[in-house]
């Protein structure tokens, strides 16, 4: 049964990928790519990677789609018919694929418990997390503590992206005009009411995910995305200007940086106890408690930066002047 679902989802993915290749309407492409993420997230759940699935769904199906749609709104709807030769790319890709297939021949079989990956390093995480970190979610433990520095890097990556988007787009954000309110969807009765009702629960869900990352799937990153989603939906329905008044871009920029500082600051604290960077064990009475506090702190930093980056990126994209001129859909 498991392999049937597995296969089915994989085939879905392949089908979707081919569809993306074939379609020239960019809108379809974007929708299909959202579906691709959604299916791969389902597959990730199936492969026991719940945290990853959580993230992939939030990112691939959520954030990417919104960003791509904004881009489409500002650029073009159709792909121009290709003029370039496709033989060379095909050959290159085919050879690359062939190389990879060749590489699979010596791989351990799928799901093989005796594969080398399951023999070294990972078993220790599984066996030691309970007493060293003291939280059920091993992924969070590894993410935030054993390989906490990777995650600091990850936060820096997302911070970089936030800064980069600001650098690229902040200069072309349009000044709000008096007419802007018209296009807020406020007059859309159903949307307005439902959104108002949902914002609270969405925010709550975000914070729930933020603080329960130790116990189940989730954590700062996912929480940040959901948190930002609440703002995005608010901005979609009530207009960017309203959203900007409630949460100004400058404040977002501060939060953006603050998150990274919280994370790295948590690491720096260890210095004062003459411990290595990111050694949380000094933060609490016992090493385990220290780890727990440390992880909560860094996850908080992650969440803050991620949410701020998402919001500021959305602001930057949505605030662009759409090009003049139209083309038929």
């Amino acid at each position, binding site marked *: 049964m498991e392999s049937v679902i597995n296969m089915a989802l994989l085939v879905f993915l392949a089908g979707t990928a081919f569809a993306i290749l074939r379609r020239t309407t960019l809108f379809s492409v974007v929708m299909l790519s959202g579906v691709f993420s959604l299916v791969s997230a389902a597959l990730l759940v199936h492969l026991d990677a719940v945290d990853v699935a959580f993230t992939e769904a939030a990112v691939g199906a959520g954030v990417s789609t919104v960003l791509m749609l904004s881009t489409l709104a500002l650029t073009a709807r159709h792909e121009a018919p290709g003029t370039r030769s496709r033989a060379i790319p095909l050959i290159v890709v085919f050879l690359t694929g062939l190389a990879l297939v060749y590489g699979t021949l010596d791989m351990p079989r799928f799901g093989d418990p005796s594969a080398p990956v399951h023999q070294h390093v990972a078993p220790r995480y599984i066996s030691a997390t309970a007493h060293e970190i003291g939280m059920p979610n091993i992924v969070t433990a590894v993410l935030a503590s054993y390989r906490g520095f990777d995650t600091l890097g990850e936060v820096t990556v997302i911070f970089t992206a936030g800064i980069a988007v600001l650098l690229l787009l902040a200069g072309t954000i349009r000044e709000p005009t008096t007419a802007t309110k018209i296009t807020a969807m406020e*007059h*859309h*009765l*159903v*949307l307005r009411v*439902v959104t108002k*009702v*949902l914002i609270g*629960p969405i925010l709550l869900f975000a914070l729930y995910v933020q603080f329960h990352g130790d116990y189940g799937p989730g954590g700062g990153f996912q929480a940040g995305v959901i948190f930002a989603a609440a703002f995005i939906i608010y901005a979609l329905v009530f207009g960017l200007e309203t959203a900007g008044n409630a949460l100004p871009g400058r404040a977002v920029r501060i939060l953006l940086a603050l998150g990274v500082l919280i994370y790295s600051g948590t690491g720096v604290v260890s210095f004062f106890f003459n411990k290595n960077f990111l050694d949380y064990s000094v933060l609490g009475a016992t090493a385990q408690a220290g780890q727990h506090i440390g992880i909560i702190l860094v996850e908080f930093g992650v969440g803050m930066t991620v949410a701020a980056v998402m919001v500021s990126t959305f602001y930057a994209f949505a605030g662009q002047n759409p090009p003049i001129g139209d083309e038929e859909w």
Partner: protein
Amino acid sequence: MIALLVEAASWTFLLLGAFLVLVGALGLVRMPDFYTRLHPAGITDSLGADFILTGLVLQAGFSLVTVKLFLIGAFLFFTSPTSTHAIANAALVAGLKPRHAVVPPRPPEKATQDEEAR
């Protein structure tokens, strides 16, 4: 005994739900135009989803899982008609004409109870 009953009920719900979802999807493919496709899609969203979730709730017994299943259900209950309405509305506004129905003309205004939007 009770357990067996619950099990049986859960099966029924799940299978019924699965059936409805399938029917909905089939309808989505079969129906001739956009507006008619909205209806079978609604099957999946409403009863299909609810049945499956109910079946799962019965499996889970009363626990945190139940709460979450319930929340999913509630969320879908709120959002799915909203989305459907929004899509339909967008299509109409954009000028997509139903193929098998005429958009009736706007009846004359009855009263001027304006300023509804806040």
